[in-house]
Every structure is written in C-alpha cells, then in structure tokens.
C-alpha cells in the first residue's frame, strides 16, 4: 500500500498490542482461586499424612496398641463432639472431596501452564527443585493409584490388593501380612518416595501460594516443608522395612 497513508486513529487491527485496552477477561475459575484450592487441599493431605504417620508408627508398640488406636480412630475420635463412629465418615468425606478438588485443580492448572508455555520446551536448567515441580502431576498420579490400592488393601480388604489373610478389625495383622509380600512392600516404598517428592515441593508451594512474603515466614515454611517431607519419608519407610526384615511380625 505504498504511498497511501492510513487514518489517524488506526482501526482495531492496526492498534499495537501494548495499546489495546486491558478489557480481556481472566480465565474462569481464576488461576489464583485454583491455587488456593490446591494449597488448602494439599495442606489437608499434608496434615493427614503426618497424623497418619504418627499412628502408623504405633506398629512398633505391638498389635494391641495399634489395633486399639485403629479402633479409636474409627469410633471414638472427636467424640463426644460428634457421635461415635461419625468422625471417620466426616473425615472420609473431607478427604474424598479434597482429593477430587485437588486433582481437578491440578489438571486445570497444568493445562493452563502447558498452553502458556507454548510449544517450545525450555531446557538448560535442571535442579532438584525443578525436577520435583515438573513431576508433580506424575507423582500425584502415582499417589492417587497408591491410595486406591492402599484403601483396598488395608481398609476394605478387597482382593487382590489385600492379602489373602485379611481380617476386618485386625489392622496390625493385615498390615504385616500385606507387607510380607515383597512386591507390595516395594510398591509401598516407591509410593513413600513419591510422596516425599510431592509433599516436599507441595508444601513449599503452599507457603508461596498462601502469600508468605516475609523473610522469616518463608524460611520457616521452607524448613517445615523439608522436615515434614523427610519425616514422612523416613518414618513410613521404617514400617515395610521392619516387616520385611522380620522386626515386626
């Protein structure tokens, strides 16, 4: 179009990008809302696995202690605040809802991330942190699979996940029998390692997503994330190892 000048006010297609008024709508649901969902549900899981670990470690106190504890969990916790037996169902409902929300938000976020990154993968910076962050979806999926397996194994006693010797109410025996199968023990150990990867990074993410900007708060958060991750890793690993080595039987 050499020679013919265009108008003073350029048409919409001619307006340079930076001059476009910012009337564009944010995605729905907003990314920050999804991040809050991730952080809250992730924190719930984090708290759960820590308490679960404490309970699990009672394995080392013997069958009576452990079974009594399992029973207390099922029947007596939070009573008389809520009637006997209710806790476990409230708890299961919260956990299931959280899991659904967590997985849903994770998938939506990852899809947005994928689109925003574009077709070119950026390489060149490989750190442990970025490995953890990058593999969140994979570690999360392994965890999901594990949890399903785990519930079938130790809660419902559904075959083939559960051992042939499964008996409702004998938590200690069920556990020992289950872990005496080497393949299952190996899978547990793998899952526990995965949990460490997921949780250590996940909790650090929580610190950031929930807006911890202060220097001391961040340092504390980073430490807690690391310590919780390690605790859950080492503590839980002890159990299958103990069963396999015959320390617990």
């Amino acid at each position: 179009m050499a020679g013919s000048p265009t108008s003073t006010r350029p048409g919409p297609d001619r307006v340079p990008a930076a001059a476009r008024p910012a009337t564009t709508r944010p995605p729905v649901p907003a990314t920050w809302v999804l991040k809050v969902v991730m952080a809250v549900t992730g924190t719930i899981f984090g708290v759960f696995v820590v308490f679960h670990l404490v309970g699990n470690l009672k394995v080392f106190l013997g069958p009576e202690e452990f079974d009594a504890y399992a029973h207390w969990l099922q029947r007596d916790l939070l009573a008389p605040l809520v009637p006997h037996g209710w806790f476990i169902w409230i708890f299961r409902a919260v956990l299931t809802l959280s899991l659904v929300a967590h997985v849903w938000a994770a998938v939506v976020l990852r899809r947005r991330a994928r689109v925003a990154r574009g077709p070119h993968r950026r390489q060149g910076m490989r750190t442990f942190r970025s490995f953890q962050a990058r593999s969140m979806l994979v570690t999360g999926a392994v965890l999901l699979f594990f949890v399903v397996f785990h519930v079938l194994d130790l809660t419902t006693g559904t075959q083939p996940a559960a051992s042939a010797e499964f008996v409702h109410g004998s938590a200690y025996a069920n556990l020992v029998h289950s872990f005496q199968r080497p393949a299952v023990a190996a899978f547990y150990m793998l899952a526990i390692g995965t949990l460490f990867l997921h949780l250590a990074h996940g909790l650090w993410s929580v610190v950031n997503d929930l807006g911890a900007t202060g220097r001391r708060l961040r340092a504390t958060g980073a430490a807690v994330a690391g310590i919780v991750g390690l605790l859950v890793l080492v503590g839980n690993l002890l159990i299958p190892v103990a069963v396999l080595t015959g320390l617990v039987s």
Partner: protein
Amino acid sequence: MTDPTTTRADTASCTPDDVRTLGTPVDGRVPDVPAEQAWDDRRLHYPLVAPANRRKFTVIVVGTGLAGAGAAAALGELGYDVECFTIHDAPRRAHSVAAQGGINAARARKVDNDSVHRFVKDTVKGGDFRGREADAYRLGQESVRVIDHMNAIGAPFAREYGGELATRSFGGVQVSRTYYTRGQTGQQLQVAGANALLRQVARGTVTLHTRQEMLDLVVADGRAQGIVVRDLVTGEVRAVTAHAVVLATGGYGNIYCKSTLAKNSNATAAWRAHRRGAYFANPAFIQFHPTALPLMSQWQSKTILMSESLRNDGRIWVPARADDDRAPEAIPESERDYYLERRYPTFGNLTPRDVASRAARERIDAGFGVGPLKNAVYLDFADAIARLGRETVVARYSNLFHMYEQATGDDPLSTPMRIAPGAHFAMGGLWSDYDMMTSVPGLFVGGEVGWGYHGANRLGANSLLSACVDGWFTLPYAVPGYLAPLLGTRVLPHDDPAVLEAVEAVHARTERLLSTGGTQGPDRFHRRLGEILYRYAGVTRTPEGLAQGIAEIRALREEFWRDVRVLGEGAELNQELERAGRVADYLEMAELLCVDGLDRDESCGAHFRADHQTSDGEALRDDTTWCRVSAWESPAPDAPDARFVRHDEPLTFQAVPLQTRNYA
C-alpha cells in the same frame, strides 16, 4: 555529475565564511520581566482551553522517555487526545532508563544555603553562560514539584533513616541537592513515568504506538501538523496528523558511535524536523563524560558510563611518570598524580564534567594514560574504604561496582577502576523559544532533543530534571497556549499535498537505501564517522581539525550513498534499514556539528578550542562576540555550494552576572 562533496574534500582548510552565512536573528520570546518572574508571568498570559474542548485537539508526542511520557501523560490527564509514538516495544525502554546518578531539585531543605537562585547560578555558570537565564529559573522553580510528583507516582527515592528524602552532591556544585534511588534514578523515574503514561492509555486519552519510528515531519501552512512514521514490524509507512507535535526523542550523542547512549538512540526525528525548518541550536556542544569505561576491544559496541556519583568518594589519579607500566597497587603514593586535586583544590575530584574530561584527556594524550591501551585514568576507592569502611562504600555503589566487574572482570574494591572520557550528553538540540516551541510553529520539544537550560555544559543530574520539567510541568502549559486559538480547526486531511509529499519523501529515501546495493553495512560507516568526530570534534578542537573533519565527513557521506549495503526488504522488521537511515542522518548532521564548532570562535563549556585558552590551559570565552546561541538552518543536502545559515539569539544575564568560570 558535479558532486560538490568530492570537490570540497581536498579544501580541508576552510574558514567559517566558506561554509556558512548569517541569517536574521531569532527571538527567544522570553517574557520581558526579571528572569525569576518570567515563568509566573508567562503562565498568567497563556490562553486556556476549556476542559470540554480539550478532546477536540489531537497532539502527537514522539518519544516516551521522561520528557515524552510526562508530556503525553500530563496532556492526557488534562483531556487532550494524545497520539504517542516510540521506536521501542514498550514505553519504559526509553534511554532515560539508563541514567544512574540522580536528579537535581532546588527544594533547599538542608541548611547548606541552597535556594532556587543558587540553583540558577550553578546552572547558568555551569553552562558557561550559553543558556537562557529565564529557562534556568523555570527549571529550578518547577523542580520542587517534579520530586513530589515522581515520589507520588511510585519512584522509591532514597530516604534517610529519619524517613525524609535523602540527597547527595554532584559535580560542579557545593550543595547537596541531588535526589536519587541507588544507582538507578533514571530507571525509577522512567518506569514511574511510563506507567503513568500507561494509565492514560488504559483511560483512553492516549493512544500508544510502539515500534513506530518517526521519519519525517509534516509542515503545512507554516505549521507542524503531523508526522510520517514507519511501522518497524510491518514496514508500513503512514502519516499521522494533529494540531501540534511534541518531539521528545532524546539526544544525539550516538553520532560519536561509541557513546554512553543506548544503541537505538538517534537523531533522526530531530534531524528530519530540522530538514523541515526547525533550527538546530549549538550542535557542537557535546558533553564528554569523564567517568565512562575506556574501550577495551575492537568489537566493544559502546562505552559504558560509570555514574559520576563515584567521584564523590573515588579519587582520580595517573602515575606521575609517563608510561609507567606497574600495576596500580605497586605505585607508591608519592609517585601518583592526583591531577584534579592538584589543579582544582576547591572542587578536587568533583570539578564539572568538561573540566574533568579535558584534564583526563590531557593526561592521556601526554602519555600518562593507564590500562592496556593507555587510554584511561584511575578512579580509586582505597581511601574511601579506609575512611568509611568497606561496607559503607559497597552500600553506596554496589550496583555500579557490580556493573564495572561485569564489564571488565576487575573488582573495584581491590584494584582502582579505569575510566576515560566518552561522548555522553547533547547540550545542543533543536532550537526552541521560551515556550519550548521550535522555529516551526506547532512543533515543540522536550528533554534532550531540545537545546534548553544547559548552555555549553550540563551540570550532572540537571537533565533528568529538565526532561521531567519539560514533560510534566512546561509543555502541559505551553502546548495548550498554542492550541487555544486553533479551536475549531480540523487536523490536516491525509490527502493534503503536504502529507502526500512527506510520505513520498520517506518512501523515496527508504527505496534509495535499499537499492544502493553497495558492499558495506551501515555500522561500518557509523564506526568510521565516530572515529572522525572523536578525532576532530572531541574533547579538544582546533579550527584546522574541524575543517579536516568537515572534509572527511563529506567524503564519507558520499561513499555511504555510493556503497552502503542494506540487506532485507522494506516491508518487514529490518534493523539494518533502521540503522542505515539513522547513520545517513548522522552523516548530514556531523557536518553541521563541525561547522558549528569551527564557527564558534571561542572556548566555552564543553566546546574547548585549543586556540582559545588561558596560559594555564583553561577555556577562554569571548563574551563580546559569542554570548549568543547559534541556531542553524541547513541547505538542501545535495545543493552545490550551498551554505549553512546561522541565526543568532543573543543572550543576556541579569541575575547571574557574566563571569569567568573558575573551578580552581
């Protein structure tokens, strides 16, 4: 073809009369009241535009630096319809972003006896009495509001422990009036200004056009009524018309190729406007910054500036013995020459830039230079570290030290920095009257593209101020004053012959650059031009040298149009074409720069002529003949035997009587 450039090339010993004629004087239209009342008086007399009528006026602002962003935002805030252009992809990238040291303001909060009057005195005297006194008053008076405004819109100025604004002192003054944000003053001001501009874009008062280069000015009926721009991405050339045009396109220091300016800083907008009739004032007044980094290799693309604030605590020295090859640490105190402290005991290392640059150049030329190419002097922090402690020194200068270490690989805390004078700031620029309007009615200037305030030498930290004052607090008064009588007129239609002619001229020029089909890229010409200018129009000038420079520039320009190679096409992002256009303009402008230097038969400020110096080597002004501004008009580029025309604006000084600058 009888090419005048080639026939003139060998007449290297030309005199001013060979290259210029005298035109009618120009009038600065300074209000006829004492200088300190001029701004109040002028504001009282500006015609006003009623708020409801403002959006009927379209104003073009070219440039988004401190001056351009300020003017565009302020005019947008007032309600004018503003069209704003920049060659950058984002308004924040204008070269104001690179200023480090600080911004002056005559807020006079301390009891160090500062005041607006003292600010004016320092500015006028620092400029060696070659700027307008009334302009300097306005600058000082508005400086207060500039700090308040920039603070309010988010520039995080350095603070004292008590919470008040911190200041430091800068070269050439004995009070502490420089406000700063670490070593990033320009960045913080620029980002705040650019963001204020984006606020207006969001409000719809300003239309921002990024990556668009102004390549010509549209003048019709004797008024500036539009510009021609090239879209740098698509290559499309089009005209934009308006009621007034503000140029805020920055300085032309890059004409020296290796300068402290950004790679894309250019004189094209100013030079094209000059070609359309805007007089060019004092083009020879170029400041060489004493604390630039010396060239270290052939492919170095520019000289990097180390902020002048370093001179607050650093001591400058060279070995007392020429060609001393020892490492700086190995040279004992007694064998060092702290030449600034020796020659200028009062100001010492804080003498004004021109004095410091010349003194350094003198030492380097006399064989005392240091570094591998012997082209530098030392700037030493050992004393400051001993006096203040390492921590304090690091706190003050950490990012500058870091920058130095980045560039050179040396740590300034353990070995002295090496510095050398580098082309830096253009005091010269498009001539404008007191209202910032050029000799083309309707064409305004703001910031470094203009000539105002700084005379023959700019005081450090005064130019961020002048860009801010022009943009936020002068043009928003002056431009409406010009527009008011035009109420009811329409912008020029795009089929007006003046518009078509300007667009055609840009096309023709682009075509010519693309089709020359030579062998050398534009960068090579730029480098050679820079060498010529440093040699003949550098820190020290001689009439013979300038005449030689003129001849060499003409020859180079002729070679350029014969042998330039611009690859690629016009209708695409073509950086080679952009560079070629800018170098072509520099090749024209450089001649004027040398002509002005040759013509101005005196030494003043940064313009130091070896044939005008005192017995101890100081600049010798000639106030009887040269107390005036040279406002130049250029002949058509290819006209044979045409001469540059000098229009004078005489300068008078009431508040600050003429005196010899003396920093000893």
